[in-house]
C-alpha cells in the first residue's frame, strides 16, 4: 500500500501535481470553510472586485459547517458536506486561484475539467466521522459573513487531517473509478 502524503497548506501546486487519485494524505495548515450561501457571496465578490476576496488566492476551500466550539475545542464536530452542491461555482473559483477543495461525494464533469485546467485537487474526507476529524482542527477564526451562522467563512487550522485524493490534476475521479476497480479486484465482473 502506498504511504501517506503529508501536505502543508496552503499547498504548493507542484506538490498537488504529484498526488494520485485514491492516495491517502494528511493536511496541515489553514483551510477556509464555505458552503452554499458562502459560495454565492464569494463569486459575487470575485465578479465585482476582479479577484478572490479575503486572501483566498492559493488556499483550500473546505465544504463544511462545524458545530459551535465547546470546552476548549476549536470545533466539537467538523466534517465534509456534499461537494456536488457547490459544483456550479467551483470551476469559476478554481480558475480564479483556489488551489484545492475538500468535501465528500462525487462531482460534475465541469469540476473535473476545471481541476485539470487549473492544476487543482479535490480531497475527500469521510462523512460521518466529525468527532474524530475535529481532533485534527487546532484553531478556528471567523473571516467573513458571521451572520450566516454555521455557513460563515471560517479559517480552520488543520493538523494531520486525514483525507483521500478524490480528483487529481490529471482528471482521475475516485468516486467514478473506485466501485469498478473494486469489483474487478475482487473478481466479480
Amino acid at each position, binding site marked *: 500500500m502506498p504511504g501517506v502524503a503529508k501536505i502543508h497548506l496552503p499547498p504548493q501546486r507542484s506538490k498537488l501535481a504529484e498526488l494520485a487519485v485514491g492516495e491517502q494524505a494528511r493536511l496541515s495548515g489553514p483551510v477556509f470553510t464555505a458552503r452554499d450561501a458562502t459560495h454565492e457571496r464569494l463569486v459575487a465578490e470575485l465578479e465585482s472586485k476582479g479577484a478572490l476576496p479575503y486572501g483566498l488566492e492559493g488556499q483550500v476551500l473546505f465544504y463544511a459547517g462545524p*458545530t459551535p*466550539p465547546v470546552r476548549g475545542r476549536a470545533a466539537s464536530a467538523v466534517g465534509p458536506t456534499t461537494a456536488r452542491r457547490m459544483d456550479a461555482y467551483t470551476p469559476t473559483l478554481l480558475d480564479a486561484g483556489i488551489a484545492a477543495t475538500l468535501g*465528500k461525494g462525487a462531482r460534475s464533469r465541469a469540476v473535473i475539467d476545471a481541476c485539470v485546467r487549473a492544476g487543482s485537487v479535490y480531497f475527500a474526507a469521510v*462523512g460521518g466521522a*466529525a*468527532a474524530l476529524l475535529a481532533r485534527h482542527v487546532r484553531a478556528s477564526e471567523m473571516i467573513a459573513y458571521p451572520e450566516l451562522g454555521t455557513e460563515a467563512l471560517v479559517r480552520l487550522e488543520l493538523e494531520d487531517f486525514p483525507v483521500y485524493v478524490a480528483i487529481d490534476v490529471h482528471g482521475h475521479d475516485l468516486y467514478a473509478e473506485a466501485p469498478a476497480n*473494486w469489483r474487478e479486484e475482487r473478481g466479480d465482473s
Partner: protein
Amino acid sequence: MDASTIGGVVREAVAQVAVRLRPDVLAALREAAIRERSDRGREVLGQLIENARIAEEDGVPLCQDTGTVWVWLELGADECLAGDLQGEIDLAVSQAYREAGLRMSVAGDALLDRSNTGDNTPAFVDVTLRPGTGATVHVMLKGGGSDNSSAMRMLDPTDGPDGVRRFVIETIEAKATGACPPLVVGVGVGGTFDKVGVLAKRALLRPLTAPPQDTRLADLEAEMLAEINALGIGPAGLGGDTTALAVHAITAPCHIAALPVAVNMGCCAMRSVSVDVD
C-alpha cells in the same frame, strides 16, 4: 398525558442520540469491518468506529450535521393529550440544541426565506394513534446529505417486487456517495403519494437485529442488500464491499392502480431512539 412530558422526552433524546451512535448500527459497523475485503474500505470503517468512541467519550456530536429533528408520536387512543404539542417539542429542541452545542440547520422557508431560524426549530412532528394507553416517542436527527439522497416514485402495480427492487438499486447507484455510506436503506412501499416517504423513514427506526415478520419481505430485503453491496461503492463511496448495512422495508395498503415506493437513506451516523411513555 401532558404535551410537556413528550417535550421532556424529546429534550433528553436529542442530547443523547447526537453523541451516541445507535448500538445496533455500531455493532453492524464492527461486523462489517471484519468482513470488508477492501483495504480502503476497512480504513474508513475503522475511522467510523473510532469516531463513535470519541464522540461518546468526549460528549461531542458524531456528525457536524446534527440534523433536523423528526418526532413521531404514537399515542394510545385511550390517552387524552393536553397542551401545545408542537410548542413543547420546539421548546425542547431549542433548549437541547443550545445546551449540547449542536448545529442549527433549519432554514426559515425553503424558498422565500432561507435564513437560519437560529434554534433548529421547527421540529417535524407526526402523530398517529394506536389502541390502548401510553405512547411511544420516536426521535430521529436527520442529516441533510442522507435526506437529499432519497427519492420516491409512483410505480405501476405490474412493476411488482422487481420494479421496487430496480428503483432501490437505481437510487443507490445514483445517490449513495452523498449519503455517507455504509447506509441503512429505508424503503416504503404503498400508502399514497404523501404517505410513502414516511413509511421509508419509519423503516429506519427498526433495529438492525430485527428482521420483518413476513418472510417474503425479509427475502426481498436480503436480496436488495446483496445486490447493493455487489455494486462496490463501499464505505464513504471510496470502493469496497460495505455500501449498506441493512435494507429495511415497510409495506402498506394502497390504491388498486398504485404502487408508490420511496427510499429514505440512513447515513452511517444513524441517530434515533424510541422511548415508551406510560
